[in-house]
């Protein structure tokens, strides 16, 4: 089963429109919620008068900060509703009414008096010591992180050349097609909430319990279906407001974001400023890499800590060097909240790194591919000494050296990708093609954590009729996670996948599970499913042996049945075998801490792009794209290819067209829509080739490693490097839009 392209689960429900997303659900007596948002980037609420709104026919309840007990927080810096608003779009109040348009009209009748506070949009301004504080503790969000292996100071002292550069990336929105929604229903003190989620157990349930001031046991969270999340649907404020409205009304309430709300009150990719310094020795070795990143957090922390850490992974680990240092700082600004989005900070950090390394290759007169071949991290890992005590699980985003990878096929990615794009033949020196349509080739590598979660649980139950149900606490966010988990379960059991079903995304019926994040599903949840299924299978075999009076050596699996060779030749069907189990035995639940005590588990990629730049309009056309990936053994090749293609296209938007724009005088988001936050459309699809090394990883379930996020990492630098190759101009700030290209060409010609 593993390695076959099983048809995606739920495909028929999706193509018929029968699959119900949260916004499609209806309950009897259900009301509709709407949120009042701040028109100011930073202000204190002096007073709120809701009487006119409450008097409107059809309005059932209004909630404001007055309804929230003090210190009722979702995160240390995020109140359920606060008396201070910190970005244009920050939540002020919420209304429930019998119809959505009535709730919307009621918002206009809520009178709010604001005291305007100074607003900061630039993180460099906001981090100055005398800047006006956005939160009581000042504008540094959390403590800046410093991670170091060896000593970069010593490394730079040994170097002959030092290369420095600064790189910036924009605010970029995940913009899943489904605007987030929630539907809350109370029965007494117990809440059931259906919502867009990426972690019913470990994200939504505890946050909702905290925000509502009730024990977690009284909260049931169900994610019926996800219309695309890409990591960004990991906030719980809207769910909490929905639940509060429902509690106040005593009726179910559904709250759906508009598209604009999804852009401004969802979660976006953190914009970043990265400064890189790299030392090269006389013999051409990398003696030190030092990266410093500042990210604008927007108004609240969200998942900033993970994002800022993930941003440094490339600089610390993609190139072999004894000395590497990464410093990451998060700064509050009065902008929409940045949070999780596909590969967290890795695309930002590795954009800087991979454009910088391209520049170094050129300065050393090396072909960019050759430079990377010489210097990328090898299977034995980074030089240095292991710091993690023996026997302890190794981080999949380590800083230390001295630990080998479980598998690392980066050199295969480079070889196969280069061949597919025709690198040897087609790569030329920069700006050397004639005419105004200039072609160029570029490439970039990427590495990412291989999918470790802190904890993963799964339950496998076989029913008397022989059907098997796998229960997991994670969610299929649209990428096909349940399909691959089902394949892993079927493989471990040795039965046809048609006998197996999978259930997930419901705190009441599934075991605790991590968030669907960090590309951890296939690896961590896959390991848990495999273990549960294997345990069940062993139990069945034991029972069959006992029943038939034979030993384990004499039984084997044969096409979903059990073949017995001694004492007599006999076949026991799956159903017969299952019947031998007691009800308790039919169910196996495991909880594991996935990972390895010996190896770093990472996924790898190398991407290659050919572009054509029209130097008279600034238009960039991607002519050909090759994405080569080492994600271990591929569980479902077609779904995997679909996911890589999707990741590449989504990030072509990050590279070339997408940016959430803010007016720097008013703090207003200007383009929270699909017309102007220009996500790629179908005609932008370039010829695209996906290559999987498809070599089993010894640590992963049936050899699999993470895949979801890695495709998003090397895209922007590969494109920037290809543009450089075409026209001889470096682009170190994203997105690379025609206006920037034409402006730089004008300067190039003037010089």
């Amino acid at each position, binding site marked *: 089963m593993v390695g076959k*392209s099983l*048809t*995606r689960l*739920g*495909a*028929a*429900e*999706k*193509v*018929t*429109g*029968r*699959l*119900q*997303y949260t*916004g*499609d659900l209806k309950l009897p007596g259900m009301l509709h919620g709407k949120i009042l948002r701040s028109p100011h980037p930073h202000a204190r609420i002096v007073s709120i008068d809701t009487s006119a709104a409450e008097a409107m026919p059809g309005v059932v309840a209004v909630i404001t900060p007055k309804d929230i007990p003090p210190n009722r927080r979702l995160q240390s810096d995020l109140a359920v509703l606060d008396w201070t608003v910190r970005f244009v779009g920050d939540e002020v109040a919420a209304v429930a009414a019998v119809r959505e*348009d009535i709730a919307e009209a009621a918002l206009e009748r809520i009178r709010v008096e604001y005291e305007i506070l100074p607003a900061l949009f630039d993180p460099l301004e906001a981090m100055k010591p005398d800047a006006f504080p956005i939160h009581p503790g000042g504008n540094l969000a959390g403590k800046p992180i410093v991670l170091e292996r060896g000593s970069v100071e010593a490394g730079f002292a040994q170097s002959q050349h030092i290369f420095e550069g600064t790189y910036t990336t924009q605010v970029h929105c*995940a*913009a*899943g*097609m*489904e*605007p987030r929604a929630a539907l809350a229903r109370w029965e007494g003190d117990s809440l059931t909430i259906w919502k867009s989620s990426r972690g019913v157990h470990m994200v939504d349930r505890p946050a909702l319990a905290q925000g509502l001031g009730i024990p977690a046991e009284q909260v049931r969270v169900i994610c019926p*279906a*996800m*219309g*695309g*999340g*890409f990591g960004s649907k990991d906030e719980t404020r809207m769910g909490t407001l929905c639940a509060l409205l429902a509690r106040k009304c005593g009726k179910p309430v559904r709250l*759906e974001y*508009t*598209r604009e709300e999804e852009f401004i009150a969802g979660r976006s990719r953190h914009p970043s400023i990265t400064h890189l310094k790299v030392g090269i020795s006389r013999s051409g070795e990398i003696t030190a890499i030092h990266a410093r990143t500042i990210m604008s957090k927007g108004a609240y922390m969200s998942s900033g800590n993970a994002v800022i850490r993930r941003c440094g992974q490339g600089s610390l680990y993609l190139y072999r060097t004894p000395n590497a240092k990464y410093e990451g700082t998060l700064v509050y600004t009065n902008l929409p909240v940045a949070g999780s989005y596909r590969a967290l900070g890795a695309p930002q950090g590795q954009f800087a790194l991979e454009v910088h390394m391209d520049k170094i290759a050129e300065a050393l007169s090396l072909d960019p591919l050759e430079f990377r071949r010489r210097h990328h991290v090898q299977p034995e890992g980074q030089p240095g000494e292991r710091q993690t005590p023996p026997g302890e699980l190794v981080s999949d985003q380590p800083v230390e050296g001295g630990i080998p990878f479980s598998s690392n096929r980066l050199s295969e990615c480079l070889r196969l990708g280069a061949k597919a794009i025709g690198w040897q033949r087609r790569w030329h020196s920069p700006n050397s093609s004639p005419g105004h349509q200039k072609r160029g080739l570029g490439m970039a590598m990427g590495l990412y954590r291989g999918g470790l979660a802190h904890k993963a649980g799964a339950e496998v139950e076989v029913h008397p009729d022989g059907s098997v149900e796998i229960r997991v606490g994670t969610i299929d*966010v*649209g*990428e*096909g996670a349940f399909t691959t988990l089902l394949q892993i379960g079927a493989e471990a059991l040795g039965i046809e996948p048609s006998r197996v079903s999978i259930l997930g995304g419901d705190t009441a019926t599934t075991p605790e599970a991590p968030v669907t994040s960090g590309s951890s599903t296939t690896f961590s949840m896959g390991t848990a499913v495999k273990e549960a299924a294997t345990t069940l299978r062993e139990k069945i075999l034991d029972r069959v042996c006992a029943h038939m009076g034979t030993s384990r050596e004499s039984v084997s699996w044969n096409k979903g049945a059990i073949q017995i060779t001694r004492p007599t030749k006999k076949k026991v069907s799956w159903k017969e075998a299952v019947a031998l189990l007691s009800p308790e035995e039919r169910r196996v639940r495991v909880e594991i801490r996935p990972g390895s005590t010996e190896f770093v588990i990472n996924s790898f990629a190398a991407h290659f792009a050919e572009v054509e730049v029209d130097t008279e309009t600034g238009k960039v056309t991607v002519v050909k794209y090759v994405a080569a990936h080492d994600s271990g053994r591929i569980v479902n090749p*077609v*779904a995997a290819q*679909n*996911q890589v*293609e*999707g*990741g*590449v*296209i*989504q990030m072509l938007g990050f590279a070339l067209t997408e940016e959430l724009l803010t007016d720097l005088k008013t703090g207003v988001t200007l383009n929270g*829509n*699909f*017309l102007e936050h220009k*996500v*790629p*459309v*179908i*005609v932008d*699809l370039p010829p*695209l080739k996906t290559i999987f090394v498809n070599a089993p990883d010894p640590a992963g379930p049936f050899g699999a490693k993470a895949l979801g996020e890695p495709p998003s990492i090397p895209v922007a630098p590969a494109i920037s490097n290809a543009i450089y190759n075409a026209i001889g101009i470096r682009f170190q700030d994203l997105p690379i839009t025609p206006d920037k290209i034409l402006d730089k060409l004008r300067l190039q010609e003037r010089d």
Partner: protein
Amino acid sequence: MKIKKRWDVFFIVNGKRRSLTIEPHWTLLEVLRDHLGLTGAKKGCDRAECGSCTVLLEREPVYACQVLAVQARGQRITTIEGLERNGKLHPIQQSFVDHDGVQCGFCTPGFIMTANAFLERTRRPSPDQVKQALSGNICRCSAYAKIIESVLAASRRGKRTRA
């Protein structure tokens, strides 16, 4: 000239006559989703930008979110719910299943409705024609390559594809 706040109207939805009283500011999408219980067409943007709400008005694909329901009164409307015949998937639907032209599925009904109107008109389209025809629908999972494959494969089945 009647100037009214409420209109008694009917539509022919998936071949059935549906009568109801509507308010003029309701969009066709609101009527389908909130009043006729047809939630297959999705509200992805409500601004005629994403295509998740695409339905057929007569035989043209339109953004149901940006059509006033009252303007469409009396007309034939086909939604994703109207494609199956006798419990069997329409060839385009089957093709999307077979070729994995689906990820999260939210945009899928819209793509299929647009493809349906297009294949009705164009028997053996080129990949480029398919791209142009589907250019008003956004898939953020960006399963575009597989969507094109699905539509081309459906066209090769060579059957009548009319809804």
